[in-house]
């Protein structure tokens, strides 16, 4: 799905990653952890091509990201669902239209998939809020809406950046079970989080691997978690 070969990333302030090699196999469930500011979000951005590696190669669905045109990137993003830490929506459109947005921009007829949309909103527990505008939603509702938007295209990969950052424990459990369910449907999942309790809870449900960002590199954490 997504492969990194000797990837380095540096910005004005210095080097963030150095020589990372990693392969996200289809159907795998990964956690990405590490202290805040260590580069979890940046790592995910490399994966969904918002940032380009300074050196090395990022391959997404078998193609070299640095060789892709902007339109290629757009098309590949339709196969990657992203849940952001601070979920951004189109604030002037109701929730249902926001969740269906990936369909709309892909040129697919959202009304033809209305049944899917209803089912999806039920699944994330937002069927009562289809006409609400995003600013009217609570943090947890926004996180779930973002997850619904990330999966409506039935993507192969779901990347979630601190999806439980703004919600209480109970809600984070619900979000986690949604992600686990998606993984069981065969989706490749990567969740960046610093919440170790969440990771422990997940390990009880699914064979998740934990990646830790340390010393500008990504290492597979031991079974001690």
């Amino acid at each position, binding site marked *: 799905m997504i492969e990194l070969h000797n990837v380095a990333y540096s910005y004005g302030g210095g080097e963030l990653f150095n020589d990372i090699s990693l392969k996200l196999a289809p159907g795998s469930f990964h956690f990405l952890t590490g202290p805040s500011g260590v580069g979890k979000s940046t790592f995910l951005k490399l994966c969904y091509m918002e940032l380009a590696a300074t050196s090395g190669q990022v391959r997404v669905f078998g193609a070299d990201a640095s060789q892709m045109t*902007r339109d290629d990137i*757009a098309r590949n993003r339709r196969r990657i669902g992203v849940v*952001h830490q601070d979920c951004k929506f189109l*604030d002037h459109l109701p929730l249902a239209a926001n969740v269906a*947005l*990936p369909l*709309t921009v892909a040129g697919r007829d*959202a009304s033809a998939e209305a049944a899917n949309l209803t089912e999806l909103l039920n699944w994330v527990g937002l069927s009562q809020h289809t006409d609400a505008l995003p600013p009217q939603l609570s943090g947890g509702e926004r996180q779930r809406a973002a997850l619904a938007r990330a999966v409506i295209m039935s993507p192969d990969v779901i990347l979630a950046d601190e999806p439980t950052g703004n919600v209480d424990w109970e809600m984070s459990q619900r979000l986690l079970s949604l992600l686990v369910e998606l993984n069981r449907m065969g989706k490749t999942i990567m969740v960046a989080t610093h919440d170790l309790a969440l990771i422990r809870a997940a390990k009880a449900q699914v064979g998740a691997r934990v990646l830790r960002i340390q010393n500008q590199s990504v290492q597979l954490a031991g079974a001690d978690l």
Partner: protein
Amino acid sequence: MNQAIVALRALFVGDVHADRVVPPTGYTAWLTLFVSGAMAFLAVFSLALSLATGRLADRWSSELARSSTLRISAPSGQMAAQTQAALEVLRTTPGVASARALDEAEQRALLEPWFGPDLPVDSLPIPQLIEVIEDSDGFDAEGLRQRLAGEAPGAVLDDHTRWRTPLVKAADRLRLLGVISIILIAATTAAMITLAANAALAANLQVIRVLRLVGARDVYIARAFVRRFTLRALVGAGVGTVLAMIAVAILPDAQAAGGFLTGLGFQGVHWLLPLLIPPLAAIVSFWATRTAALRTLGGMT
């Protein structure tokens, strides 16, 4: 060709969903409409000015070709001899294409507007007129006057071309100014639409980021902006053009006032020319917004 039709259709019919992804923009929409309307209004007047001065220059230029007149005032006995002598001088003057003495009927026709049809021309000592047509090089008026003074002392050369030439030059210059004004108006429209589009793009950066994140292609995002600005420019320029054409149509007609004054209006098929302004404004706006949108998008990932 088919693709162009599809693109045009998409532009005018639009995609309801694509339109909704960018929030409505309130007052910038009105500003764009106003700017395109005002610019179209000015463009119509510049066009009218160019066409009117063009007509003026053409008329004066065409009169240049047969513009000199030789007037011979002599006692009736010498008239024929002096006319012959003057014609001979003219025939041998370099720069004179042809010279012809007006016959009695022509002279009477010239005088008729002033004295009426019953003027007994025969009994009056009216001067003999000789029409002189210059070739493209023109002749040396001063030299001709001196030679005529010797051969036909009653001849007076009236070369009105000499004061018409600067007028034609002025009219040509005015036409050029009109054309430059139209170009400047188009460029100003492009600049203002670009500023408005950039403002709209900047105000919608979050929208654009979200659209990119969920897999929207650049053209999809750009189209939502381009369509709006193009339609606004088209409508605004349409209204401005119609108002300006009405204003030009009700200008008082200067045609009757003088031989070489011409009304600052459109004549005949020229009335169709201002109708090109709204589509041109739309094209300028399309291009300006598209460039601005793709530039903004190019800076994002």
